[in-house]
């Protein structure tokens, strides 16, 4: 088994080919910062194959629906079958967003890597924000 760091290595006895447990992801995730100028809300849903993610971001006249993307899920180790993160891409033509999320202590820590593809001379940017899952228990 090839590896690039020891933590990539998994003994054959610990390989688990069961489906990844993604039960911690579906739902509505709300940005902890009510003053955000970026992504305000994320909706993760079960889809035919895997999970889909829909983004609503802050615009000057209300929320802007980015549409839906399919997400790739990640565990916390090569032998883990519980989701600890995800990634997905949105392509808008003039710009592209690569989202990388990690679940930490119940929070979603979302990194957005924004690349502009137009001629506006805007710098590509990075932002990292926190999201909480709406649970409606209290």
């Amino acid at each position, binding site marked *: 088994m090839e590896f690039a760091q020891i933590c990539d290595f998994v003994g054959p006895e610990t390989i688990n080919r069961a489906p990844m447990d993604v039960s911690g992801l579906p739902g509505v995730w709300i940005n902890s910062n009510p003053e955000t100028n970026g992504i305000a809300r994320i909706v993760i849903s079960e889809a035919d194959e895997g999970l889909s993610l829909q983004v609503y971001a802050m615009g000057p006249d209300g929320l802007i629906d980015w549409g839906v993307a399919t997400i*790739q899920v990640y565990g916390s180790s090569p032998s883990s079958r519980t989701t600890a993160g995800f990634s997905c891409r949105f392509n808008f033509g003039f710009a592209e967003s690569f989202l990388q999320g990690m679940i930490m202590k119940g929070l979603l820590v979302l990194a957005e890597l924004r690349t502009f593809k137009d001629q*506006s001379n805007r710098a590509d940017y990075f932002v990292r924000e926190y999201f909480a899952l709406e649970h409606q228990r209290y």
Partner: protein
Amino acid sequence: MTQTLDFKQIRDLDQALIDLDVTSIGVDRMIGRWINTDAQTRGLQEITIKQTGAQFSVSAAGAGTNGPIEWAAQSVRPLANLEEEAGQRGITLAADFDFGFMKAETYLRVNKGVLVIVLFNSFRDESGRSDYVTREFFYCAE
């Protein structure tokens, strides 16, 4: 003449993004050799970040069974990081590594003098391993 900018969030219209210096803020805080704060790490033992003109390179040493394993990023892109914690402004580097059997899509940033790397590792072989995400911390050796 005014230019109309496309956007999908208000942040896309931040005037600071048109400031040409925005991807050079705090670059000197990232350049150098960084050592993992965990001496027993099974992941990356050290990271070296270099800059030549506007180009960056990221290399690393992965913990191996018979000595370090060399990592060299195939692509490195600087991104303006205007909203870092505690008002710190700087850059984040997006660095991608490709080993054939596995790829690692990473981002690196400095927060209060600590280099943080987050790795999203995806396996392309048929080993049955799960793709996985890790995060590690480094102090500057120079």
